[in-house]
């Protein structure tokens, strides 16, 4: 099967083509085809996973694409344990989201198109996962960006949605510049972009470390864009304008994790290059803290989750930067499940309550038992409560940071864990418990249909159990399957587990006091720390900062250049033209007045003389006679004197 793993990716593409060309009018057929395709992919991925479990590989299959002197760009498939795990994650989450969307998108006039885009996304994402060269990764990387753009802007009649799509595309594209530059550097240095060849060259020290550092950091720029890390994180919260299943699939579980996936793929570089590793770790750590702090005070249910996603992605990046290949990818997997669950749960709430604002919700647990229970499970998981999956992966991350010796980053990570627990339970309590704050919306709320709740239940099971494959005591668990170079079995550090749990419980307890028991008034707290509150509420003013600097500069600069184009270059061209015309006029004048003037002048002078002379012909005969007489007299005088 493994040599045909491209089929896994191409099935959704086939589904996309079928929907676009044949089923663009039929809701049933469109969703049917898309779900069949993704479920088949899921089954095939399972088979591949088992094959990889038997033989870790990597299994590489190469296809010629461009081949000319000085440029060899093959495409290849590279299936190693990480890819196999990612295939599972993507197909599982994608299947759940597909099924969920039947209910969520019910009645939307562009229902078939939605499913076609979902299929296209699944294709791109699976392609990205199985790519065996940085080049192919880049191709699919851009394609997932496109589908993300299309899906964020799915309800493009809303200006905010259209804006958000554009913002997402361009912001990630800025990161992709780095990716592209990194590719160029790598290609110039190594002459190939195949993972395997590059890993080989790095291991044999064929590429100077300085070049590797540059390439590594530049490639990581791509991850910064796609995984919404500081400073390019601003697009992800806005992307929540898209339909909620899209947020779950693309902007929580899979596409944004692509950055983490890419970072894992350059682990060889991170291991060699100290500077790249430090950069990655600190960017991840800072992002985790910043996003979590913003998440504390947001009121839009999806935005809180979005900031939580940014923060958790920061975690993974942090782990990878510390060399925690296993930890980072493990968290990637567990996070995919519980975050998808959280988003789908949030979608279910929004579907029922018709609002995103948690201040308008409250008490929904009674109306929506399944949604609220699964949401609580996911929240417990992300908070890192024993024995849910989040606990194990978070613990792995702490351990990998500790092993690398970054105590500062470790403390930061623990603080973030507490903040995570707090804002997640703030969200839970405000949404599901207490008195309904908007009676009208509460009355209309109802549990979602089965197509939406079944995926929730399925994901809830995964949110609980998926982490068990990585329990440290397990000998043939996750760590001995997905690893860099050689399996890494950290000794379970009970101290860290304890600290993590205490911090998480503390966060939950604080949220409980503030938003359930109401023994601490959140409004009063907000008023007391007004400066910090405003700062966080306005998301550290990143959007305003970018708006005021980069975007303003671009708009200003484009006007300047356009003016320059019209006023200088085109002016010069027109000037040459006008100068030619001026010359023409000048010489025309010269011709008319000087050259032709000379010709006419001769005539004019003659006439002028004649006009004077003819006056002497008076017509009076005596005048003539007198002149004759005078002539005779003069003749005589001159002749004879």
């Amino acid at each position, binding site marked *: 099967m493994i040599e045909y793993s491209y089929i896994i990716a191409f099935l959704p593409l086939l589904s996309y083509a079928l929907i676009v060309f044949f089923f663009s009018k039929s809701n049933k057929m469109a969703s049917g085809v898309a779900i069949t395709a993704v479920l088949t992919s899921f089954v095939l991925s399972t088979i591949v996973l088992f094959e990889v479990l038997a033989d870790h590989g990597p299994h590489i299959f190469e296809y010629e694409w*461009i081949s000319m*002197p*000085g*440029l060899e760009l093959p495409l290849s498939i590279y299936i190693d344990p990480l890819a196999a795990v990612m295939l599972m994650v993507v197909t599982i989450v994608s299947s759940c989201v597909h099924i969920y969307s039947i209910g969520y998108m019910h009645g939307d006039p562009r229902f078939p198109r939605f499913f076609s885009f979902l299929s296209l996304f699944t294709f791109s994402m699976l392609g990205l996962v199985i790519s065996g060269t940085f080049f192919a990764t880049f191709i699919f990387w851009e394609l997932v960006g496109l589908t993300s753009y299309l899906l964020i802007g799915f309800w493009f009649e*809303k200006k905010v949605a*259209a804006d958000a*799509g554009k913002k997402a595309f361009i912001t990630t594209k800025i990161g992709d510049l780095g990716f592209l530059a990194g590719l160029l550097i790598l290609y110039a240095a190594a002459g190939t972009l195949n993972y395997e060849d590059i890993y080989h060259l790095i291991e044999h020290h064929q590429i100077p470390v300085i070049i590797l550092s540059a390439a590594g950091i530049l490639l990581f720029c791509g991850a910064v864009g796609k995984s919404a890390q500081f400073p390019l994180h601003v697009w992800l919260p806005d992307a929540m304008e898209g339909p909620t299943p899209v947020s779950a699939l693309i902007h929580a579980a899979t596409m944004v994790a692509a950055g983490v996936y890419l970072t894992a793929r350059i682990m060889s570089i991170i291991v060699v290059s100290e500077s790249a590793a430090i950069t990655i770790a600190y960017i991840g750590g800072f992002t985790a803290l910043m996003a979590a702090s913003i998440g504390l005070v947001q009121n839009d249910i999806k935005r809180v989750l979005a900031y939580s996603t940014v923060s958790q992605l920061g975690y993974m990046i942090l782990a990878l930067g510390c060399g925690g290949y296993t930890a980072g990818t493990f968290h990637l997997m567990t996070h995919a499940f519980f975050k998808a669950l959280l988003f789908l749960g949030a979608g279910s709430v929004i579907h029922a309550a018709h609002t995103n604002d948690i201040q308008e919700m409250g008490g929904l647990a009674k109306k929506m038992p399944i949604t609220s229970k699964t949401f609580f499970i996911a929240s417990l998981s992300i908070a890192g409560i024993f024995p849910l999956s989040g606990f194990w992966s978070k613990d792995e991350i702490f351990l990998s940071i500790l092993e690398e010796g970054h105590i500062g980053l470790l403390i930061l990570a623990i603080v973030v864990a507490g903040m995570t627990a707090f804002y997640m339970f703030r969200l839970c309590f405000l949404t599901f418990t207490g008195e309904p704050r908007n009676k009208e919306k509460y009355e209309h709320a109802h549990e979602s249909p089965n197509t939406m709740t079944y995926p929730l239940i399925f994901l809830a099971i995964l949110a609980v159990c998926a982490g068990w494959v990585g329990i440290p005591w397990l000998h043939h668990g996750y760590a001995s399957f997905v690893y860099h170079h050689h399996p890494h079995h950290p000794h379970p550090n009970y101290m860290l587990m304890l600290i993590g749990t205490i911090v998480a419980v503390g966060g939950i307890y604080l949220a409980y006091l503030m938003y359930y028991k109401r023994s601490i008034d959140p409004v009063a707290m907000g008023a007391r720390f007004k400066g910090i509150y405003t700062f966080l509420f306005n998301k550290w003013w990143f959007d305003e900062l970018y708006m005021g600097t980069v975007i303003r500069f*671009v708009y200003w600069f484009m006007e300047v250049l356009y003016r320059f*184009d019209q006023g200088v270059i085109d002016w010069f061209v027109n000037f040459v*033209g006008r100068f030619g015309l001026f010359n023409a006029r000048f010489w025309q004048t010269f011709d008319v007045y000087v050259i032709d003037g000379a010709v006419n002048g001769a005539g004019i002078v003659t006439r002028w003389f004649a006009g004077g002379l003819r006056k002497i012909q008076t017509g009076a005969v005596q005048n003539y006679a007198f002149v004759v007489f005078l002539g005779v007299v003069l003749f005589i005088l001159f002749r004879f004197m």
Partner: protein
Amino acid sequence: MDFPILTYMIFIPLAGMIVVMLLNKEAHTLIRYTSAFFSFVVFILSCILVANFDGSTAQLQFVERADWIPSLGITYYLGADGISVPMLFLTGMLSFLSIVASFNITNRVKEYFAFFLLLEVGMVGVFCALDFFLFYIFWEVMLVPMYFLIGIWGGPRKEYAAIKFFLYTLFGSVLMLVGIIALYFYTDPHTLSIPELIARNSMYGYTFQLIVFAAFFIGFAIKVPVWPFHTWLPDAHVEAPTAVSVILAGVLLKMGTYGLMRISYPMFPEAGVYYATPVALLGMIAIIYGAFVSMAQKDLKKLVAYSSVSHMGYCMLGLGALTTAGFAGCMFQMFSHGVLTGAMFLLVGVLYDRAHTREIAAFGGIGAKIPLYTGIFILFGMGSLGLPGLSGFVSEFMVFIGAFGSEYIATWIVVVSILGVVLTAGYILRMVQRVFLGPFNTRWEDLTEMNGRELFTVIPLAIFTIFIGVYPKPLVDMITASLDNVVRIVTG
């Protein structure tokens, strides 16, 4: 192949023009279908040409040679290699599609199609002429119908645009003519055969090369157009009727880069190396500058026109690199830009026919009203911003890789050029958003979807965009040997 296919390709449109001129000028439908038929024959011939072309060698193929004016050494010399075959194919296809797209012309139909066919004669001729005299004749033959096509069937400022185009290009041609004459008298025995002159390139002195290269370069650069010779382009594009814009962007601009590849570089290799950095620098400026200026445009067609400046900058960057990958990237970009921008102009024309305005701000949310049109437009928009899977990406990537690995130009030029990628995304998405997305502007309540004929003109282009983007191997195989040969000549 004994069949003189190139001669047929050149003279069938001429025959078509004569036939069209003999028709009754009121018989509009007959005139339209007759000219479409003749251009379709050329298109079929170009397909046959592609099918019979052997890409494994840099040799000139389909060569035809006959004495013409023996006393001056002028011959009727035609031939094609990997540089010209893709361009001939592009010309055949775009001419046919443009003629179909011009079916809605109602004013002076007969003259219009006659001029169009004459234009095709010139275009095909330029791409297969191998004698300077012949080359120059075809080069000039193109100008005249173009002048009238813009000047008669154009927009409000058509006279200005037509004259600007004509004079600007003529200025370039004059410099080129000077170069040709210089070459003619420099060589002994005098010859005007391009392959012959290339074979003797070692005889040219260094200074001579530098000067004549510059003369040819300006002639070609105006056509490309290279910054800062580009300002005729937006005016000509905006004023020209849709189909003429397509030809202008799709084929005429390519003649500049074609000339550089066919003539300038192989003939003056040392000058090519000397000018590598300036050429790449001009490319870089065009990429960034064109993108910024596009972003500032308020007129849809002008935006596409300026995007051409930016896109042709990639060609120049690839040429400046003097590597096979860079040249191939340039070649790909020529083909891809021809397809993409041709399609963009067709689409803008479709919208203009319905809305009678091209002002971006006048639209908004029309994606909901005409989804098919929007889908196709976004496809080409994505191609133009270099989305993988579409042709633009392949060419950009090849140019970048070729330029980055080049020993002739500095790395920073490439790094700055890469910024163009995000700027392109910026202006394309901004335009897409302001025209198609957002709240629906009820002014366009009765906007209609594309009709069959309009779809017929863009679907082939869409297929090619995707095909080249997904599977570039056929085109790569076609051009590699010839380009490698050129690069070898230049870099020794």
